[in-house]
C-alpha cells in the first residue's frame, strides 16, 4: 500500500462565513476542500442547526506543510474572523496513492 504523508487541516466555523473563507483559501492556493454541515457546542454556544443561521460548517483540506503554514499565518494575522467562532486544527494523515 503506497501512501503519502500530508496535513489535514480542519476548520470549524459559522456557516455565514463559507463564501468569504473559501474565497480566501482559494486565493492562498487551496484547490480542493470538503465542506460538511455540523452542529455541536463550544465557547460560543450551542449550534443546534435547528435554524438556518445557527449552523456550523466543517471545512477539511488536505495540504502540504508549506501551504498549511501559509493558511495558518493568514488566519492568525487577519482580523477579519475575530468576531466569529472558529476552531482550526491539524492532523497528519496518510493519503492513499491511486494508480
Amino acid at each position, binding site marked *: 500500500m503506497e501512501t503519502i504523508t500530508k496535513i489535514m487541516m480542519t476548520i470549524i466555523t459559522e456557516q*455565514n462565513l463559507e463564501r*468569504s473563507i473559501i474565497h480566501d483559501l482559494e486565493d492562498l492556493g487551496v484547490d480542493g476542500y470538503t465542506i460538511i454541515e455540523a452542529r455541536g457546542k463550544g465557547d460560543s454556544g450551542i449550534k443546534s442547526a435547528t435554524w*438556518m443561521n445557527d449552523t456550523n460548517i466543517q471545512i477539511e483540506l488536505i495540504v502540504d506543510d508549506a501551504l498549511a503554514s501559509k493558511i495558518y499565518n493568514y488566519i492568525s494575522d487577519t482580523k477579519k474572523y475575530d468576531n466569529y467562532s472558529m476552531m482550526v486544527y491539524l492532523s497528519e494523515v496518510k493519503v492513499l496513492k491511486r494508480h
Partner: protein
Amino acid sequence: MTLDPVVMFFIAGFIISLMRVDFKLPSAIYEFLSIMLLITIGLKGGIELSKQHVGDLIGDVGIVLLMGVFIPLLAYPILYLLGQFKRVDAASIAAHYGSVSVGTYAVGVAFLESHHVSYESHMPLYLVVLEIPAIVVGIVLAKGISKETNWAEMAQESFLAKSIVLLFVGLFIGWAAGEKIHLSLDAFFFAPFKGILALFLLEMGVVAASQVGLLKKYGLFLLGFGIVFPVIASCVGLVFADLMGLSLGGSLLLMILAASASYIAVPAAVRIALPEANPGLSLTASLGITFPFNVIVGVPLYYKIAEMYLGA
C-alpha cells in the same frame, strides 16, 4: 374571535418543543416549505401586477421605501438610549425590525382570506422592497458611512439573499404569465397555500420555543421591546397605508410588514457586515418574541386598530 387553524399549528409546535419532544422537520423540508411560500406569494403579486400599469406604483414604492428607512431610525434610539445596548447591537436589532418577515405576512394573508377581506394584491412587491433599506440603515447607524464596510459583499448578501430572489422570481413569472398561470399551476401553488403555511408554522413554533431559554439571558427590556415596538411600528405602517390610500386589507398587510422583524435575510447579512454585533440578541427578539407575538396576538390586534382608524 377564534384562532385560525394555521396559528394553532404554530402554538402546537411551540408547546411540543417546550415539552422537549424531539420533533423537528428535516431542514430540506423546511427549506422546501419556505420556497413554496415565497414563490406563491410572489406569483400572487405578479399576476396582479400584470393587470395594472407598473409605472403607477412607483410613487407608492417610494413611500414604502421611506417607511423602511424610518422604522429602524425609530427603533435605534429606543434600543440605544433606553435599552442601553451597545451601539452596534442597537443598530443590528434596529435593522432586523426595519426589515420584514415573510412568515408573518403569510399569516396576515391567511387571516384576510378567512375573514373574506380583500386587499391590494400587489402587496408582495412591498415585501421585496422592504427587505433592503433597513439593512443599509442598520449598517450606517453602527459604523457611519465607513470605508471599512464592504458594500459589494453586503449587497450580495442582502439583494441576492435567497428569499428576495425567490420572491422576485415569483413576481416576475406571475407578471409575465398573468392570469393563465392559474390554469396550469393552481393545484401546486395556490390551492395548498394554507397547508404549506400550517406545516411551516409548526416548525416555526418549535424554533421559536427553542429561543425562549435565551430570554432569561437577555433580560426584560428585550422582551418588552419585542412586544411593544411591533405595536408602535404597526401604527406607523397604518399612517403610511393611509397616505397611500390602501384598503382595510392592504392597510393590515402594510401594518404587518411594518411590525414584523426579519429572521432570515437580515441575520445573515448583518452577521457579515457587523460581526461585532451579538447575533443572539436580535434573533431572540425577532424569532423568540416578536414572531410569536405577531402571529398569535398582533395580526388580529392590528386588524382591530385598522378597523377603528379607517372607521370601517
